């Protein structure tokens, strides 16, 4: 008659084997992370392409109003936001590399710094919103600001979601790193890079489109 401990081993072994097979199957994938995250990211990119299209169509109808709105924004803040997000993305790349090497300490350090920068991005964006609102620029004051608040607001929600994923990866890194964890962090990292990728196009679209007549 086996004791309780033996029984636990007997039950957990098939589960562990199934996990190993599943992870092995994922490892054969041609993409980092789980395939599902790529489907989600592609869907998000399509959604933002529609936002680009809607903004551009609106701008074509009233270019002067959009240029007036753009000139109220501080491009230096836009540039700083871009640099912050790019640095955060680079730190996440370093965290993924550390995870593949099994170094949980480096994973946690890089993720912590990336999350701090993500918080800095959200804080600076909030400062920008308050600054714009105090200057009298509400979503209804100018069509430009309607789209600016809506699209950058949706992007900010993606930043929050991305930081949530990074936080989960950070907490999970307190345990020894295995293949399953690497899949986790690769998936979270891909989402975070997508957030960065969207911003590098939102930055010129909102802050740098200078109008004029040829």
């Amino acid at each position, binding site marked *: 008659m086996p004791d309780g401990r033996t029984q636990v081993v007997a039950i957990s072994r098939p589960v562990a084997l199934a996990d190993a097979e599943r992870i092995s199957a994922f490892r054969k994938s041609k993409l980092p992370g789980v395939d599902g995250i790529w489907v989600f990211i592609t869907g998000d990119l399509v959604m933002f*392409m529609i936002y680009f299209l809607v903004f551009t169509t609106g701008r*074509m109808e009233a270019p002067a109003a959009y240029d007036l709105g753009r000139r109220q924004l501080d491009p230096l803040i836009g540039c700083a936001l871009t640099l912050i997000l790019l640095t955060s993305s680079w730190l996440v790349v370093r965290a993924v590399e550390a995870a593949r090497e099994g170094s949980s300490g480096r994973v946690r350090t890089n993720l912590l710094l990336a999350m701090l920068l993500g918080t800095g991005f959200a804080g600076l964006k909030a400062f920008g919103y308050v600054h714009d609102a105090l200057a009298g620029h509400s979503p209804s004051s100018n069509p430009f600001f309607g789209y600016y608040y809506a699209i950058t607001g949706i992007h900010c929600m993606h930043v929050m979601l991305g930081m949530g994923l990074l936080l989960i990866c950070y907490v999970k890194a307190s345990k020894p790193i295995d293949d399953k964890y690497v899949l986790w962090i690769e998936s979270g990292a891909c989402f975070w890079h997508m957030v960065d990728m969207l911003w590098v196009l939102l930055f010129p679209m909102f802050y740098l489109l200078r109008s004029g007549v040829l």
Partner: protein
Amino acid sequence: MNKRTDLGPNAVYIVLMLATLLSFGLAEKSAAAHIATSAAVVIGAFKARCIFVDFMELTWEAKGFRIAFEVWAVLAVVVILGGYWSTIVHPH
């Protein structure tokens, strides 16, 4: 399995930072507003491409996704600059 370009993420990060400063400087300081603005958007798409190739490790091995992302980057430039230039060539 998922090879990046030969540059490596550290060099790509420096390129991305410099490209950001370049687009900001061009758009803010350049007298040729239309060209500088267009360059800033193209630089934005170039940066997006660097991110999905070198940071997200999206290689040609995953052909479907890679094509979708390449098309997305080009389409973003066409949409943003198409609308921008249409207001310059045909002002209201």
